[in-house]
């Protein structure tokens, strides 16, 4: 392999380039990124950067010199097509990058609400540019409405409250962060937000986002709910999830189904791997369950594994991590490991829901499959390891009782 192209210059792409060099690849290495920035960290965009505690410098991902990686950088130039037969990636503007090996790490893009006019004060949050634009607007003390109480929506609400702003969060499901926490723990989180003064409304639908004339630079003014009621707003953040950025791969011959479909070693096609928010693959640690993770830790682990896979040829190992994600909201550290659904067996140990300090253990068919902790990092890491070791649910309960 003499030429490798890494398309996507955020966390997964960067870690892939570092892995390739670390494992001895000394050929041409091109890193392509749609954003005009060197790779930077996204988690602080809904926390420290938005709060005004940090600036761009603090979130730059690589502090060591880039020279050592000997990369050819193409920043601010998105890839627009993949020609697998010619083994070339086409960039906007027409440049074609040839490759023997390709890492696809173009991440995901925020979903918007269909039919919404481009009003001033209406945002999604994915990039540092989004964050700085929102932050500038927060300085004026607006009434904030967040649509969607997933990870991003919940964190932004917490950050806004920390800044003393009035926040209404609108969520379609019965609890916030149900996808990440399940209904029981989602309810605990909801209570926490309400205790901190968030006007959290669950089980509501958004009919329209209204304001001035968008052609005249009009601003957002209110959100109209399905019930007919209206929430006044000076700033609206739409945080209803992301879709994988695979538009540029259409027609390439790769299998696209809510992400780039890969085998269990992250291979999407010969000499082509995918990593990060857009990779969909069967995870052997969960009996081949097909998943696509939008987690920081996965971007690192999969970026590393995918790069390794490119160089490994036939001797690749399956990428079989125990998923891990964290969220800092108010003074609580929420961490989750493994996989779980609302139907799994649930046990709360190492504390109580009321204290907002506990570990929730999830089991399926007698196996410990997930753990979710509020401010119990030490314990959560121990259960993450037990999940990897395929520990029985009962063994986890014994461990909890003995601790």
């Amino acid at each position, binding site marked *: 392999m003499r030429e490798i192209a890494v398309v996507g210059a955020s966390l997964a792409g960067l*870690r892939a380039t570092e892995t390739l060099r670390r494992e001895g690849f000394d050929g041409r290495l091109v890193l392509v990124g749609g954003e005009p920035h060197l790779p930077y*960290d996204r*988690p602080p965009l809904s926390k420290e950067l938005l709060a005004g505690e940090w600036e761009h410098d603090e979130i730059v*991902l690589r*502090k060591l010199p880039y020279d050592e990686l000997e990369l050819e950088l193409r920043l601010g130039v998105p890839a627009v097509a993949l020609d697998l037969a010619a083994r070339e990636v086409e960039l906007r503007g027409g440049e074609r990058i040839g490759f023997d090996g390709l890492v696809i790490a173009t991440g995901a893009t925020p979903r918007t609400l269909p039919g919404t006019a481009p009003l001033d004060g209406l945002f999604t949050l994915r990039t540092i540019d989004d964050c700085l634009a929102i932050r500038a607007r927060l300085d004026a003390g607006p009434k904030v409405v967040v649509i969607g109480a997933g990870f991003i929506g919940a964190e932004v609400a917490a950050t806004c409250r920390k800044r003393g702003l009035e926040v209404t969060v609108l969520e379609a499901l019965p609890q916030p962060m149900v996808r990440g926490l399940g209904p029981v723990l989602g309810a605990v989180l909801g209570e926490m937000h309400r205790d901190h003064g968030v006007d959290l409304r669950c089980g509501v639908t958004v009919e329209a986002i209204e304001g001035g004339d968008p052609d005249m630079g009009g601003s957002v003014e209110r959100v109209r709910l399905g019930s007919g009621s209206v929430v006044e707003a000076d700033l609206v953040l739409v945080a209803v999830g992301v879709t994988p950025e695979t538009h540029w791969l259409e027609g390439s011959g790769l299998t696209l189904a809510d992400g780039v479909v890969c085998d269990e070693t992250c291979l999407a096609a010969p000499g082509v791997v995918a990593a990060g928010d857009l990779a969909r693959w069967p995870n052997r640690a969960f009996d081949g369950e097909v998943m696509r993770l939008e987690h*920081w*830790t996965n971007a*690192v*682990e999969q970026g*590393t594994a995918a790069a390794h896979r490119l160089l490994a040829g036939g001797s690749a190992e399956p990428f079989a991590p125990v998923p*891990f994600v*964290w969220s*800092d909201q108010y003074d609580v*550290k929420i*961490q989750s490991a493994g996989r779980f659904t609302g139907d799994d067996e649930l046990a709360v140990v190492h504390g109580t829901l009321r204290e907002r300090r506990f570990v929730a253990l999830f089991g399926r068919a007698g196996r410990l499959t997930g753990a979710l902790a509020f*401010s119990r*990092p*030490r314990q*959560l*890491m121990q259960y*993450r*390891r037990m999940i990897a070791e395929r520990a029985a649910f009962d063994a986890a309960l014994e461990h909890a009782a003995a601790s």
Partner: protein
Amino acid sequence: MRIVVDFDKCKSNAVCMGIAPEVFEVRDDNFLYVLDETPSEELRPKMEEAVRMCPTQAISIED
């Protein structure tokens, strides 16, 4: 090899502890304690992994 933790960045995720509990310990006070600031050279691969996996890039190695 010296392990340096930037405690302004450390958010006690304990990922480091998951990789090398012999060097990193997050205790019940939710603070990270570095048990051995000068671990032996054979631990270098684990230390480098901890550096890479730290969610807030709070760990560095000084040689």
